[in-house]
């Protein structure tokens, strides 16, 4: 079921359809929160809170307003706003100060079958996530929305309220900063 059909069904039967919305969007909401906040416990709380708020908002809206919703962008907006509140409230997140270049994690031969390779891949992913979390928010959020959550620039523009050109430049700059930070760590290939 795509988002248009989902919105149509939500408009007719919120309680009967909301579970489908949760299953369709929980991973993306969680991924955005995780990569913006860089902390899995906060990310789980934000993803849960965002979906609960979505349900309560939908409950108070007339069907025609629900029908016109662009769910992906709307949910991303809620998640991003909750992440920003959290960052504002708490001390900035832990920055990855551990040495990024160290031996040990050699190139994984075949990550898909070899368990050790999977662990190495997960570990490399965590390190890359930490690098991303260390980017300034101005670049980090657009990069996450575009490249982790797969939103279009049009959607980014509606979530963040900035022109598409600005966002393209910020994503470009963010990825460039990420490549610089990843240089020599063996993580470059993950930034395809």
């Amino acid at each position, binding site marked *: 079921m795509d988002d248009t059909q989902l919105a149509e069904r939500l408009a007719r039967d919120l*309680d009967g359809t*909301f*579970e489908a919305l*949760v*299953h369709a969007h*929980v*991973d*993306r*909401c*969680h*991924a955005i929160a*995780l*990569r913006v906040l860089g902390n899995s416990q906060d990310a*789980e709380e934000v*993803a*849960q809170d965002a*979906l*609960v708020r979505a*349900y*309560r908002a939908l409950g108070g809206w007339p069907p025609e307003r629900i029908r016109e919703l662009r769910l992906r962008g709307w949910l991303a907006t809620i998640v991003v706003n909750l992440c920003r509140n959290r960052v504002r409230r708490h001390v900035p997140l832990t920055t990855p100060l551990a040495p990024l270049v160290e031996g040990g994690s050699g190139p994984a031969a075949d990550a898909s079958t070899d368990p050790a390779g999977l662990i190495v*891949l997960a570990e490399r*992913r965590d390190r*890359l*996530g930490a690098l*991303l979390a260390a980017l300034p928010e101005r670049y980090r959020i657009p*990069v*996450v929305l*575009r*490249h*982790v*959550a*797969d939103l*279009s620039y049009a959607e980014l523009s509606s979530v963040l309220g900035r022109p598409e*050109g600005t966002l*393209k*430049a910020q*994503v*470009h700059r963010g*990825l460039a900063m990420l490549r610089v930070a990843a240089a020599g760590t063996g993580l470059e290939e*993950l*930034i*395809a």
Partner: protein
Amino acid sequence: MTRHVHAVDADDAPGALSSLTVAAPAHVAEDVLVEVGLADRMAPFDSPIGQLWVAWNGRGVSEVDLADDGPAAVIRHQAQCGRRTTLAAALPDHLADAIVRRLAGERRVRIPLDLRDRTEFEVAVWTKALEIPRGEVRPYGWIAAEIGRPKAVRAVGTALGHNPVPLIVPCHRVVRTDGTIGQYSLGGPGNKRTILAAEGLDPDALEDAARRGERLAGSTTTRIVCWPTCRHARRTQDRYRISFRSLGDAAGAGYRPCKVCRPTAIETEA
């Protein structure tokens, strides 16, 4: 110098960091559904009459059931409310704490209840039952009169029998108009006696007094008449205590009804 804003190809391809997308842990989706009240959880809770199973969601407690077997209680609850229900190891701390304090007699403890899809009449009956203090009882007819439906005594009994959250809504404190203890949904009348006794009442003595026709208790010093278990009636010394068969008798003798327990003229049960 022109600023180069057009991203290079690699930047524009979505998913350049797609390895960073990890699936949300399964509990996140389930927690959302419970929080908004589209799914329930159920956990055991110890009480004076045995192991209870309490179901709840983000809106409040949705059921209290007496069962030895959790999975059986879950299946019953699911069939009754139509929401997917999962077993949990324990109630959330705030809820367990609130229930313990409520059962200990603290009436101000707020326990949210999920009473969706119940009739207005049922909710009115249960809300009224919540006003009866621990260690006191009132007849069905009192609830009927208090909610403005004095003739609906039987319907009050039925509504109390359908109380989804016994103990929290103390339907065990509502007794028959003839003074006998009456039926109880949570495992039968024996449990009703056990719970009332645990709250400091003597069910046998109550029934004996009712059989002698002592439906109301007055004080000869204040000339106020109460339900016999009203705290004002119980602190009256025996030598000043007088019994009445009905509010009419009491009024005839010049007694006025207590403003706390509000004894009512009771329609006889059909």
